[in-house]
């Protein structure tokens, strides 16, 4: 189990073991427990209060910006990884360092705009 493919076989086996433990636990639970459902038992339990209406509510559009900020930061972080492995190598040096900071500066501009428009404040 060495080398590229061997190490990922280990990852796959570990994933399989995890799924088996999880599914096995739930299955054993289902086999061992008594099961007598009634309409009252099947309703959603929320602090003993009967649920009213449906479980669906339209959410506010302002939360979309938070999700989008998360996407921007994820893309941002993904480019930091390959950069971090090479920027100190011979043949890269200061130019590569500046290139990444230009990239970060553009994204920081977006954060600055969001901050100035008070998107980030909690209301």
């Amino acid at each position, binding site marked *: 189990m060495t080398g590229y493919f061997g190490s990922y076989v280990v990852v796959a086996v570990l994933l399989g073991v995890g799924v088996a433990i999880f599914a096995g636990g739930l299955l054993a639970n289902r086999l061992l427990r008594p099961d007598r459902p009634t309409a009252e038992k099947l309703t959603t339990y929320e602090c003993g209060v009967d649920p009213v209406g449906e479980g669906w509510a339209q959410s506010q559009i302002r939360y979309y*910006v938070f999700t989008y900020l998360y996407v921007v930061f994820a893309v941002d972080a*993904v480019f930091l990884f390959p950069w971090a492995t090479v920027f100190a190598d011979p043949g890269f040096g200061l130019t590569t360092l500046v290139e990444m900071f230009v990239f970060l500066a553009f994204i920081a501009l977006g954060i600055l705009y969001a901050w100035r428009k008070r998107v980030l404040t909690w209301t």
Partner: protein
Amino acid sequence: MTPALWPPTAQEIVFLLLSVVAVGSALLVVTTRQLVHAALWLVACFGALAGCYLVLTAEFVAWVQVLIYVGAVVVLMLFGIMLTRAPIGRTADLDSGNRVVAALVALATAAVLVTVVIDGFRSAYTPLDPGTGSAKSLGGSIFRTWVLPFEALSILLLAALIGAIVISRTDIKGRE
């Protein structure tokens, strides 16, 4: 030097199985009647695609696929669904009247892509060397050859972020 196609190696079998999962879940994305299930099938599709990348030794791209597409883009889509007034659950009128045209366009696009790939590569063969898809080799090619697209990407992200802020803030008005 092209190796024999038969018997298939373990990598080829795993790749084929993963592609079947990817195509199958992609079909379920567009055929399911529940909007939230479509987003969840998209997770399965992207996950299988990440597995395909892993088998092709594109290690870094595979984990980027998991981080960005499975992690961030699907969350963005679920938020998009939650913003709409559409009810979740089974929806009968989820199909648009354009489904035949859409299927034709999708088939034509697939035909063009498959023809180009087959015509362009034919029996070209590259050995799968682990390490060619690592973060270090990708970093080398990004910061040596593809610096301009990399910087252009930051402007794209900035434009999309500002657009999202302007659309989501109801108190930012356009010019009268």
